[in-house]
């Protein structure tokens, strides 16, 4: 199996071809980590790059993501068997009072596709649930989403509660959502702000370095 062909199939969003090539790679006995790192990820990364340059848009990113997913479904059990660890554990949710789910769902999917273990707490998540999940899952990063000017204050509240719970030192905090920006992230003491899902993945990887 040719890694370049797999990578190109991801970029084109050709699910069937991704599935066929991944299967063939597994049957040939290729290292599953290589299938992921040399085949699936580079193609997805290129779509992400095009998205950042505004040469591709969300639908193309999602079509490519679907293709990656087709390959991931085949190799995930093998990665587990080989005890290959995820990049980190990412806990995500939309903060208390806010019921918007699309943005955070897309971020969760992109993180998962990029090798993170993701725990998605859903919407309207109170600080206590974030803290509980961070402790239980030993989360490395928490992503706080807010789509309203009236709920973005609960990103601050959640960070304050994480501090009170005594786990702020070991947890990185990322924020996102339509009304927030880097200045807000600085003001409330978040470690990173991401304006879109592909940036979120990059920043999460940087935070774990």
């Amino acid at each position, binding site marked *: 199996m040719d890694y370049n062909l797999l990578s190109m199939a991801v970029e084109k969003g050709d699910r069937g071809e991704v599935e066929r090539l991944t299967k063939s790679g597994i049957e040939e006995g290729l290292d599953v980590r290589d299938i992921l790192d040399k085949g699936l990820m580079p193609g997805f990364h290129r779509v992400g790059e095009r998205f950042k340059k505004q040469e591709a848009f969300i639908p193309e990113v*999602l079509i490519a993501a679907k293709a990656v997913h087709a390959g991931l479904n085949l190799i995930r059990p093998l990665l587990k068997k080989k005890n290959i660890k995820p990049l980190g554990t990412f806990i995500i949710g939309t903060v208390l009072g806010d019921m918007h789910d699309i943005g955070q769902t897309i971020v969760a999917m992109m993180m998962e596709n990029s090798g993170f273990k993701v725990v998605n707490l859903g919407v309207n998540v109170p600080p206590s649930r974030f803290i509980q999940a961070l402790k239980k899952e030993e989360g490395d990063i928490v992503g706080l989403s807010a789509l309203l000017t*009236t709920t973005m204050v609960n990103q601050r509240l959640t960070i304050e509660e994480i501090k009170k719970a005594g786990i702020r030192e070991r947890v990185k905090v990322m924020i996102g959502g339509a009304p927030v920006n880097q200045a807000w992230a600085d003001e409330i003491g978040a470690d990173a702000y991401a304006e879109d899902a592909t940036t979120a993945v990059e920043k999460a990887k940087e935070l774990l370095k």
Partner: protein
Amino acid sequence: MTKVLEDFNIEIDENKVLKYFGYQKGFSSSEIPEWNNVLSLARKTISPAVYNVVSKINSVNSKGIVQFDNHARFKDSILLERLNEGQKGLFFLATLGLRLESEISRFLQRGLYLEGMLLDAMSWVAIQDIIKNLKKTVSKKGTLDFTLIPGLKDFPLERQRDIFRLFSHIKKEITITEYCMMVPKKSVSGIIIFH
């Protein structure tokens, strides 16, 4: 008097949906294989309800309080700067209904992110179309000045509650949370100012 608009035809302009995602002219929706199915689902599931009431501005005082004839009272610097006595406001509250929202969630839960995003984008375009239709209605009554949508530009989201209050006497399928979020999410409120 509060009115419910019936036979409200909503158009989902495909070009506007593509533009919402960032596509320029020349890109065809046919390049997105899921497009047609999602569009037909959007058309099937949108069940709009549109409420509106027209009221004249009674007074604008120096403290920034704008009083409408219908007892709507806003304390807002934006309104103070832009409103004059004699102008009128068409207050509106509209929703695309709960079913559409359930379909979006269903897509997301099944990992069909593209379909969920497309349906979401189409619903925002549908909401724009409701506002466009309301503006058309207003233009038959007078000259349109400007439109205020809570949460957009400098008009605070909290004003949503004030507008909502005007429709409290009617049984409606929209509710508002303590954070001024409307349920169903695909709902909009606003004021179209005209004279």
